[in-house]
């Protein structure tokens, strides 16, 4: 199942509703649907906020594949090259509250709620593949 959105923040909530409806139909656990939408919000917000150096409308595709108790999600965009598996700063979660910078959490949440994340830059497109085993609680 493939979803397409434009690089606009207000596209994320309607996408989340469509993803929820689709995954519920595939009998994916509600907790997994929630964390999947969390991952999508974190990644898409980053891309839309920082990824484009022009004001044009760009398309982002989000493609789901569910088979053999595994879900894979491939996100493809034509934004500036960005590899969340290596370019994102590691948040300082052990730092005392008063010293912690605000922000930098999104990618940590994505890696926590998926089993793997793979990045590839091909033909001027970022291609990020998330994988998650199903039939578990989150």
């Amino acid at each position, binding site marked *: 199942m493939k979803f397409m959105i434009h690089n606009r923040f207000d596209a994320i909530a309607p996408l989340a509703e469509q993803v929820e409806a689709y995954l519920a139909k595939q009998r994916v656990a509600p907790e997994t649907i929630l964390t999947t939408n969390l991952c999508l919000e974190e990644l898409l*917000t980053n891309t839309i906020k920082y990824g484009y150096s022009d004001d044009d409308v760009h398309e982002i595709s989000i493609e789901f594949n569910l088979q053999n108790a595994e879900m894979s999600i491939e996100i493809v965009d034509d934004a500036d090259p960005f590899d969340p598996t290596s370019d994102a700063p590691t948040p300082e979660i052990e730092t005392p509250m008063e010293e912690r910078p605000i922000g930098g959490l999104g990618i940590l949440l994505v890696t926590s709620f998926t089993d793997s994340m793979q990045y590839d830059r091909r033909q001027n497109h970022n291609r990020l593949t998330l994988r998650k085993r199903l039939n578990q609680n989150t």
Partner: protein
Amino acid sequence: MEIKDAFEDNVVIVQPAGRLDSTSSPEFEQFLLAKTADHNLLIIDLSRLDYISSAGLRVVLAGAKRSKSANGRMLLCGMKGVIHQIFEVSGFLKILEVEKNLNKAKQAIKR
């Protein structure tokens, strides 16, 4: 998102319900800013929250920092299931004051 609030025994209790995401976080931030400006004891009850993303977590952390620098106190309570897990993996459970439910938070904030 819907935000309810109450004022009991000098403590402000804030209850956000629904989704605390990148769209609704600015509204919640404004709400918290207004509350922490006037009062220094604050409980945020998350029992009616269905979803939170890093945008929402940032607002909570900023609120706790503000409250601490003003010699106030901010307690969180009522996190369930995945919401609790999201706070846990973000490392926030170690740095914020968290109670199981609203009653426990009301007792704890007096200590």
